[in-house]
């Protein structure tokens, strides 16, 4: 089944972040205190490998599974949207110690209370959708 490959990717993602302790509130706390290279190492090595992959794609060296060129869309440039939105996200990331990926991973590992976090995050997304036209972008 073609859709099951996405579940498999998710499983690899979940095991990776769990075993690298990136799902831990303590690791996020440590990162924002600059007391360990661990989280920075994960991000820097992921982005370094990612830059190489994207460059190979842009040069046409890697094609999509269907044989077509892979499209990587540029994001629209604006300043307030990314800085203000990012700041709000960062407040929540440091406070809760999880971002959306680790939230799903920990929820699956048995931390059932995070269903409340998920509901709150959906409510936050909903409120953003409602207020969107009134917020600076």
């Amino acid at each position, binding site marked *: 089944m073609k859709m099951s490959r996405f579940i498999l990717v998710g499983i690899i993602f979940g095991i990776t972040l769990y075993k690298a302790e990136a799902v831990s509130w303590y690791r996020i706390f440590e990162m924002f205190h600059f007391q360990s290279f661990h989280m920075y190492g994960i991000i820097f090595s992921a982005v370094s490998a990612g830059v190489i992959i994207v460059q190979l794609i842009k040069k046409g060296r890697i094609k999509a599974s269907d044989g077509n060129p892979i499209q990587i869309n540029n994001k629209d440039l604006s300043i307030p949207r990314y800085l203000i939105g990012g700041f709000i996200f960062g407040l929540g990331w440091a*406070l809760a110690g999880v971002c959306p990926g680790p939230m799903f*991973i920990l929820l699956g590992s048995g931390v059932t209370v995070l269903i409340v976090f998920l509901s709150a995050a959906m409510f936050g997304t909903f409120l953003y959708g409602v207020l969107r036209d009134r917020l600076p972008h």
Partner: protein
Amino acid sequence: MPQFLIDIRDIISQPWPWWIAGPMIAFIMFLLLFWGKEFGISANFRVMCAADGADDYASFFKFDWASQGWNLLVALGAMFGGYVAAHYFTDPGENVAGISAATVATLSELGHEVSEGNVPIVPEFYSWPSLFTIQGFIIIVIGGFLVGFGARYAGGCTSGHAISGLSALQLPSLLAVVGFFLGGLAMVHLIFPILF
């Protein structure tokens, strides 16, 4: 179980160093690009809102959310992955976060005592009883709200901006990541001393 499977299990069960985890995440991003998709977990919140009928309230939720089912499957897989990692690839008593001694000391200054070498992956305030304390409520409910609101406002979270966006050398993603860190630093340095 055959010996080689036990060996594989033992290798996976060790804590993974950053230089394994980072390239693995890049590989996941690559697989999704290869299949014509874009790595970004928080987009699922929008899909879940739309599927729950939020399109009646805001045009932001009027989109072809059914075409995003693949991303929900990634999130579902991440849940399975978390289950497998915690139950099959973590030895009893080894479910710890190997944070630095300096961090243990900083936590202690805040009044949050943990013993070095024995810091749990999951803090005690991730629990149902703690949800009914002011601290636990703020962490889980307000934290969740800020993550959901901020991720959509910024157009992505750690996976969409810090990994996918920076890999594609997108300036907007760099701005978002700067925002993530400014927000995170403000939280741990200005608000945690009050909250803990």
